[in-house]
């Protein structure tokens, strides 16, 4: 019964979305305030209905209702509760329901917190947002209905893919979707602005928090996925340039570009049409990502149950929204006249360079991702594009970006002077080159990657420190420290996010350059040495888990005679899903991880054991978290709240919006 109610709620939500798509749009065109006012309650009701629908599906999973096809295919009574819940979105249909839930949530947020928007803009934003919802409700109801029953319910389910039964991956998809779908807000704002025919500083200020929020979620989501891959896949890889990873990475790159160009719109009223285009493209790449994951046109490690019919539908959504948006853009963009005038050496120019590099980097990732498809269809060449290509083609962009970052971040608006901006930075430059040289001398031979990574990381972090410090003006140290605390959230956010980027880059460079590995057969009780650590295989036991059986090793890590850690690498077999997984034993450290993997029992006695020393591994994800924190600081900036205060006052004055 509850399942049917959920299904019904979903259909109702679709109908509400259709109303929300049409009525406010007509109202905004005709300036009928009554019609425009439909948007807000509709957005709220739509969100409540989808939430009810999602709750019904969750209920079915939690209670293991095996009369539901989706639950049979993706759940099992023996599965821990956390994974019963995460199983809701661990499959195609459920994840699409989560997708529309988040879409409706963002729409509702725009209705709740959008009081400072002009009524026509708000009505149009909500209508465009609803049109995206309508497309995806149609997709779910027509091709991927999660509420289908089975004729004769089985006694138990087929279990969730064991790889997905992990806390890191339980929360990875929701964060990614919050990011993907968050970009739909930027898209809706862009389309609404094109319909209005007006982009001004206020628009830049409104669109930025949404983009920032989406970018934060994408950063955290990608970081979580990468961290999961690191500890779960059994050899500590953290990024594979897999098509589906790229699908999340391209929107991240474009969202990062959009964040920066929206600043130019807000502060200087320039780059308007480019910012609109970026907002359209960023969401377009989210849709492309959805298409890549669900259609199966490109083989990837993220095997979603996919079929061509769904692919065609998503392709149609993509074509309609991107085609429509770009046509509208072509017709209206020329009306977006830039106002700000700036010199060649200026913050504006630096941000243009930032956008060029980020957008072209995203383009490179895109071409590499779809090239196998293009080559096969157009030239009959069956080939692969893998990590070695992306490493070679993508890395230079990141190097260029971080090389110009500290200078660009400190250049003044309108007109700058490289010499003057560099003055406080020469010391940092010297320091970073010294640090890089030190690394180069210390490592005998080896790749240039580590020294370059070290130079750039020091350069960026030092640059951020100098930037913050110079912002405090003149005077004695104590008053400057006091002023440092009072700097706007945006300044702190900028410095923090850039620092996070530098930390991640350093982690990637350090791990890639200095990782070491040992593969051997170890007898129980044997101790062997690797890279200054002693590893002892103490015992190997068979341990039953809730829905798996585990081969658990007990291994001690020594530094000389001192015991550093006792780790339990595991090899699990999930009988229902017929799948093995590895659980590495990891001793996390600030400077290095000791990463142990237990393999098969050998015919001649002993066990295959792999030992990795992974320097600076945790810096990669720490950097992601710090980047996200920077975004949060920036979101907390006072200038985004001023308007909120104004709204409260307006409400107190009588609750009637202006106009």
């Amino acid at each position, binding site marked *: 019964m509850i399942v049917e109610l959920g299904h019904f709620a979903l259909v109702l939500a679709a109908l509400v979305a259709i109303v929300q798509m049409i009525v406010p749009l007509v109202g905004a065109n005709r300036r009928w305030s009554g019609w425009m006012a439909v948007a807000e309650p509709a957005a709220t009701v739509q969100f409540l209905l989808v939430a009810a629908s999602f709750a019904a599906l969750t209920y079915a999973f939690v209670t293991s209702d095996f009369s539901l096809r989706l639950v049979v295919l993706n759940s099992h009574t023996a599965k821990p509760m956390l994974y019963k819940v995460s199983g809701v979105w661990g499959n195609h249909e459920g994840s699409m329901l989560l997708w529309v839930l988040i879409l409706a949530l963002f729409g509702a947020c725009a209705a709740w917190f959008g009081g400072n928007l002009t009524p026509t803009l708000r009505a149009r934003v909500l209508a465009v947002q609803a049109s995206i919802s309508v497309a995806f409700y149609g997709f779910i109801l027509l091709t991927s209905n999660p509420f289908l029953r089975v004729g004769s319910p089985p006694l138990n389910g087929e279990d969730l893919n064991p790889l997905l039964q992990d806390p890191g991956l339980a929360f990875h998809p929701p964060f990614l979707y919050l990011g993907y779908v968050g970009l739909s807000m930027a898209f809706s704002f862009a389309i609404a602005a094109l319909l209005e025919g007006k982009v001004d500083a206020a628009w830049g200020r409104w669109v930025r928090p949404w983009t920032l929020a989406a970018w934060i979620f994408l950063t955290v989501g990608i970081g979580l996925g990468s961290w999961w891959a690191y500890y779960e896949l059994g050899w500590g890889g953290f990024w594979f340039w897999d098509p589906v990873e790229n699908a999340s990475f391209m929107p991240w790159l474009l969202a990062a570009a959009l964040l920066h160009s929206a600043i130019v719109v807000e502060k200087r009223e320039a780059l308007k049409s480019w910012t609109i285009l970026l907002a359209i493209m960023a969401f377009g790449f989210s849709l492309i990502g959805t298409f890549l994951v669900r259609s199966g046109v490109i083989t990837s490690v993220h095997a979603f149950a996919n079929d061509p019919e769904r692919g065609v539908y998503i392709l149609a959504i993509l074509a309609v929204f991107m085609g429509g948006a770009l046509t509208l853009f072509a017709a209206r963009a020329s009306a977006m006249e830039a106002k700000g005038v700036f010199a060649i050496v200026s913050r504006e120019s630096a941000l243009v360079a930032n956008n060029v590099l980020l957008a072209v980097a995203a383009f490179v990732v895109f071409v590499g991702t779809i090239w196998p498809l293009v080559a096969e269809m157009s030239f009959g060449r069956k*080939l692969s594009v893998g990590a070695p290509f992306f490493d070679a083609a993508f890395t230079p962009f990141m190097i260029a970006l971080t090389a110009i970052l500290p200078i660009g971040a400190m250049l003044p608006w309108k007109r700058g002077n490289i010499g003057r901006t560099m003055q406080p930075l020469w010391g940092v430059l010297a320091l970073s080159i010294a640090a890089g040289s030190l690394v180069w001398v210390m490592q005998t031979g080896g790749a240039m990657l580590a020294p370059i990574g070290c130079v750039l990381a020091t350069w960026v972090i030092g640059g951020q420190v100098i930037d913050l410090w110079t912002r405090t003006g003149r005077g004695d140290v104590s008053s400057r420290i006091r002023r440092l605390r009072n700097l706007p959230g945006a300044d702190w956010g900028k410095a923090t996010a850039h620092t996070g980027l530098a930390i991640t880059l350093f982690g990637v460079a350090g791990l890639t350059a200095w990782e070491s590995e040992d593969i051997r057969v170890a007898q129980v009780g044997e101790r062997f040495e690797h890279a200054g650590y002693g590893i002892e295989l103490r015992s190997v036991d068979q341990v039953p888990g809730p829905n798996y059986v585990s081969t658990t090793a007990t291994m001690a890590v020594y530094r000389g005679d001192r015991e550093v850690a006792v780790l339990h690498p595991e090899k699990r077999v999930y009988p229902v899903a017929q799948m093995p997984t590895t659980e590495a034993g990891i001793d996390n450290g600030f400077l290095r991880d000791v990463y142990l993997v237990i*393999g098969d029992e050998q015919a001649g006695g002993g066990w295959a054991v792999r030992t990795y020393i992974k320097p600076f591994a945790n810096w990669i994800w720490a950097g992601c978290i710090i980047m996200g924190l920077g975004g949060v600081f920036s979101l907390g900036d006072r200038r985004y709240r001023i308007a909120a205060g104004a709204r409260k006052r307006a409400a107190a004055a009588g609750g009637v919006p202006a106009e």
Partner: protein
Amino acid sequence: MKRLILALMLLVTPALAVTPNEVLDDPVLEARARELSKGLRCLVCRNENIDESNAELAGDLRVLVRERLVEGDSDEAVMDFVVARYGEYVLLKPMATGTNLILWVAGPAMLLIAGAVGAGYVRRRRNAPAETEVGLSAEEEARLKDILQD
């Protein structure tokens, strides 16, 4: 129950990526083998190289690469040998020949174009006449005042 568990363990035996018996005694050759393996795709997997893959076929390919290396083949000769057998599909870094040149040139070419467009824009903004700011409407003026008082 114990017997069942044992039976299941036998049923699915996950092999490690590189197993100890595959490793060559000569560390230099082994290092070369590892490097080459990272550029070769596991044909039955989804976007994994043979160095990381647990699949049986990937193991066979790893052994094949090592055999060629032990026989004294150069890195290029080993790759050519594998490509001749399994086709271009096996290479994770696509060859920069023929139509693939488009793939390799796309990034730099786009950078040039985008750079030129960006530079053109910056130039135009510099020379743009300092537009007289369009004044605010009376209503906007009032709202601005309201906000500034906050």
